[in-house]
């Protein structure tokens, strides 16, 4: 007769992710029976208290959804509102918003690679231990993250919850001399950043090819950030206002974050999805650098996300330099006249597409807001990945080994749990058939 044994591993808080979550794993006869990524980030009801706020208050409010990617929230909101008011985005504003977004990509990616992800790949518990063994690499990462923060500060006064963005443009544009000083700092970081890309490619990343659908914004003339159609590796291409016709949010009992599906199935958003779909729009030096790594994009190994992230930091540096060097800073004030209506916008947050919808009255006050953050979009994909990857993993290994591998998989997605407007400890329930 078969004796059944339950094994439980409980880890109270998942480390090195932004926000709080947990994982529950049921293993039966050395096969994964069920995976539940529990996101217990307390709900904050942002969509409700946006109601009644006026258009510029919305920009300051949504920043508070996420301390790590406030610019992304401001960008999706400002574009959705300008869509309602029929305000065309001035080319100077458009270019400078791109630069500000580059700052956030540098900051957020730099933070994730060095403080959150790299310790996993090199066998350290955290960045402080990693820093003792790889001091130069960690210092380089912190410097690049810092340059990103300075870039955000140039437009917003501070890097967390910046205050510079408003409907119609910016409250204040940087001066020529401020831009020049910034360009020198960015240029000084280029070579270090190229080294970073090669370093990420040299990390002992797990080999794990899987089938998945990539989803990202795509723009014919540039690596998309604030503008473009939402496209998928299966051939979807729709503007932001048709998002809800193809993507669906589902509430699952084990999580305060919604799961998102594209045509009923999980999908990937974020740096790897973007590089996979938008390779052609990367600057040539970025492509050349990636070609040196001998990794082929599009890639089916989600662990290549860390390389894609570093490549996007390199892209962000080059893009910010190119724009700030040539930008004409003369700009007449934009007239903002509120209108009633519904507006949509989708932009590329560091972790993937961030979709906003606002309904406003004639005074420019919010009637209804809907926000779909990237982490809730990746959540179903993460569960899929865990099922696939752990079934390939030797599940007779110790609970500790399984836990570490599962955490590595989750952290690789850079889940930003705080962002889950409406989003780990680990429990393994093991039923072993023993003869």
């Amino acid at each position, binding site marked *: 007769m078969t004796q059944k044994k339950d094994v439980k591993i409980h880890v109270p808080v998942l480390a090195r992710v932004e926000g709080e979550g947990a994982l529950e794993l049921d293993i039966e006869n050395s096969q994964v029976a069920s995976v539940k990524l529990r996101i217990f980030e307390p709900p904050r009801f942002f969509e409700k208290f946006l109601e009644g706020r006026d258009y510029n208050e919305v920009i300051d409010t949504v920043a508070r959804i996420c301390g790590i990617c406030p610019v992304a929230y401001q960008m999706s909101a400002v574009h959705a509102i300008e869509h309602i008011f029929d305000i065309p985005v001035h080319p100077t504003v458009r270019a400078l918003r791109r630069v500000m977004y580059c700052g956030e990509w540098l900051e957020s990616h730099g933070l994730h690679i060095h403080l959150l992800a790299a310790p996993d790949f090199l066998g350290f518990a955290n960045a402080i231990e990693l820093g003792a063994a790889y001091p130069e690499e960690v210092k380089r990462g912190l410097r690049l993250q810092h340059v990103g923060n300075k870039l955000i500060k140039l437009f917003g006064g501070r890097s*967390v919850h910046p205050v510079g963005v408003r409907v119609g443009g910016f409250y204040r544009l940087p001066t020529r001399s401020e831009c020049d000083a910034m360009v020198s700092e960015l240029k000084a970081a280029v070579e270090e950043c190229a080294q970073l890309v090669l370093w990420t490619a040299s990390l002992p990343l797990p080999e794990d090819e899987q089938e998945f659908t990539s989803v990202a914004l795509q723009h014919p003339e540039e690596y998309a950030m604030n503008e473009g159609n939402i496209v998928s590796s299966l051939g979807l291409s729709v503007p932001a206002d048709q998002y809800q016709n193809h993507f669906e949010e589902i509430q699952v009992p084990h999580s305060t974050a919604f799961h998102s599906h594209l045509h009923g199935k999980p999908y990937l958003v974020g740096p790897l999805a973007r590089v996979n779909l938008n390779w052609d729009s990367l600057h040539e030096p970025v492509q050349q650098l990636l070609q040196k790594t001998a990794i082929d994009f599009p890639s089916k190994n989600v662990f290549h996300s860390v390389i894609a992230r570093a490549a996007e930091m390199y892209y962000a540096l080059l893009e910010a330099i190119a724009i700030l060097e040539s930008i004409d800073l003369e700009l007449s004030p934009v007239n903002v006249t509120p209108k009633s209506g519904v507006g949509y916008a989708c932009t590329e947050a560091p972790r993937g597409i961030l979709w906003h919808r606002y309904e406003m009255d004639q005074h420019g006050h919010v009637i209804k807001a809907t926000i779909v953050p990237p982490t809730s979009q990746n959540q179903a994909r993460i569960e899929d990945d865990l099922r696939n990857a752990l079934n390939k993993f030797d599940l007779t290994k110790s609970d500790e080994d399984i836990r570490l591998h599962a955490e590595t998989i989750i952290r690789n997605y850079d889940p930003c749990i705080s962002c889950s407007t409406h989003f780990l400890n680990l429990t393994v329930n093991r039923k072993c058939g023993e003869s």
Partner: protein
Amino acid sequence: MRIEKQIADSSPKPTLAVHKFTSCDGCQLAFLNLGEALLTLSELVDFTHFAEAGPVNPEASVDIAFVEGSISTPDEEQRIKKVRENCKYLITIGACATAGGLQALRNSSNMDEWRAAIYPSPEHIDALETATPIKSHVRVDFELWGCPVSPRQTLAAVRSLLSGVKPVLEEEKVCLECKRLNTVCVMVAKGLPCMGPVTQTGCGAICPALNRDCYACFGPAENINTFSLTSRLHEIGLSAEHISRRYWFINNFTPEFQQAGHNALVANKHDSKERR
């Protein structure tokens, strides 16, 4: 021996925990955004618990506990008590921990309705009726205001404790910082509805420096005259509802701003009666 002195004398070095409750994670970035200074700090103190940075020991005894976020779930109510028991010195960081934060806006709403409006199955959402500051639950030794707090504030607090002295409270108004920075007053010069006269500084007066009005993300300053500011905002042309929204924003749950927002609405009702 004074508690600050005890912390400074901790051997081999003082231990530090960073705990997260209901928040956006932005105040923890005051540590994670330090750049290379983060490595220097990790030589001066031992980060015992800081989940986002790696170390997870939520129940370990520490000298200093930094607490981010407000209390908004039954679990958090229990957890904050343990944090208090396990630390010598508790410092709240940011508007959520210190004053309840933006999410405290739900305290004056119907939570069941809100839950049902957002979640198809609201029964799975375990949240308290209110989001409240840490001091409503346990004793707090020092408060750092701001949404978000800046590295300047957190480092100054750590440095003070490492030197065995109590950290210094900054309670003066944004206006004073504008004067020191030579920033032209946006309320006087441009008629913007600036909240600087009632808001404490610590942010570096960045909003007026960017040609915009302060929106009070650092909370009420000492000795404020909200009555006077409210009448000025009326003169500038703001409606009573708009004025109350100015107070009921990031630090809506502070007694000063609660009252001022309420007064702005009530005063308006009296005015309309008199006119009739």
